[in-house]
């Protein structure tokens, strides 16, 4: 598979109509949470979104993109 095909599934262009609002929703959701609770929250959110996306390839590409540089 070519590099272009590899990244064809995950949409990287801006898709949120109000990006700043969504960003704030994510940050606010962690308010008053202990680091452990934050991790629990993030894990739940990832699972909910992964299931909603329901596409193995998109998920695999997201994982790869998120791992980059770590």
């Amino acid at each position, binding site marked *: 598979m070519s590099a272009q095909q590899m990244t064809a599934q995950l949409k990287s262009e801006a898709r949120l109509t109000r990006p700043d609002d969504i960003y704030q929703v994510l940050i606010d959701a962690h308010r008053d949470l202990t680091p452990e609770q934050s*991790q*629990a929250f*993030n*894990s*739940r959110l*990832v*699972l*909910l979104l992964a*299931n909603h996306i329901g596409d193995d390839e998109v998920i695999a590409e997201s994982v790869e993109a998120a791992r980059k540089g770590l």
Partner: protein
Amino acid sequence: MSEGTAATDFTYQPSPDQSAATPVRHPVVIIGAGPVGLAAALDLAQRGRKVVVLDDDNTVSTGSRAICWSKRALEIMDRLSVGDALVEKGVTWQKGKVFFGEEQLYAFDLLPEEGHRMPAFINLQQYHFEAFTVREVLKHPEIDLRWNNRLVGVDNREDGVTLTIETPDGEYSLVADYMLAADGARSATRRLLGLDFKGQIFKDRFLIADVIMKADFPTERWFWFDPPFNKGQSALLHKQPDDVWRIDLQLGWDADPEEERKPENVIPRLKAMLGNDVDFELEWVSVYTFQCRRLEKFRHGRIFFIGDSAHQVSPFGARGANSGLQDIDNLAWKLDLVLDGKAPESLLASYHDERAFAADENILNSTRSTDFITPKSDASRAFRDAVLDLARDHGFARRLVNSGRLSLPSTYSDSGLNSPDSPGFIGAMIPGAPCVDAPVTLDGKDTWLLHHLGGDFCALYFARETETAESLAQLRDNLAALEMPVKLVAVFPPGTTAPAGALTDRDHLADARYDSRPGTFYLIRPDQHVTARWRQADPQAIRGALQRALGKGPASAEADAEKEGTAA
């Protein structure tokens, strides 16, 4: 002794081999009379092979070991004439529940489908399984079962294997054309050959208790995450015959196994689980740490590793003994044909290919379950807990809860013995798949499809509308005249008159499960795995597929040529 019980203790008897001047040669020697070694002996004996079985002990297995026997394992044992005794004594179950804290997360049903002779699972103590199997073994004069015979030396040569065996009367030697190492997870054969057993050990401890009590819990597999009686850990409750219950309590890595095993520590734990007013007795208690690992190669020259000596898994999923029985199902017919000179050595190479593939599947599943039950990192624990929390309200998360993915037979989809699939089929019965059962009738009497498939190569043939007794007899003769005789198993739709000896598809289930049309033809291996199928049987194609299934396919022919090349 009644039908329902079988002897569990046996006596050592010296064999004339022990006083022979030169080591006596046997075609097949099996090391280990556990479930796998015993089943291997039965399978070979049913094929008329003489086998010697050596075991270092003189009893069946002791302690808390296998309890769950899968449908496929029971089908194999049924072919070996032990299936009925196992099912009759065992506790049949197919349902389970998974709890989180005090709440039930979900319930499952493993075999919601009717029309299979064998249940999805039975629970039966490993010692009962072995006792019934020994009872059958003792009926076969071909099997020479020698208790208190410990393998202490192996010389694996190109022309045979020399074994050194220790007995109460001292040491003696035997020579084997082929040796099957069924000597378990701590295999002496593996150690004597200096072979690595690689994999991972899970940093956790489990208290496994077999408890005798009269209780009216249902015959379901109950699994708890973080129950109130074992905070932060998991637990399992499962029924066995004779009012024995299997209880697993996760203890964590820091638990002291010596302390935890003591009745004064076990009893309060069990009372917390079962309630103060339940009377129980401890049959057996042990503390286990689990691992998943396998040998790199299941065959070393004339030595074959079968069962736990070849691969070991954590018990979540009941994939240990169940997969070991599939090993022997796979190997026995191949070894028999090679010993008879009816198939080339290359057929034996397919044992490793097919069963190592299956072992990897089992190890993958067991490792995933164990990682879910015992998360290896903080992140892994966070995800695990997130799954459990979400499972209350979200259906998708219930599918992610993993307390064991229960043993299913492997489909050898990549096997070199298969022929390419024909176009136009749907369903699970692809080349490499284990045949599924269906209720059929023979001469008006109810019977099961799997009873007619296997043992030898078979042709599962769905009759055409124009079929006559004569056309069928012609096909039967043609199949019997092939280089390897193929037994015709013809199936007619319900409502038609099947000629004598042909089956009727009583409930249309064979048709549905095999996606048949009139004329559909499946070539089935002696271990009841599909190896080729066609919409129309073409003698040329059948001959070719049979060749491949005997290890004479293009891939194996090349491998043989290569071997000869290097040997020259």
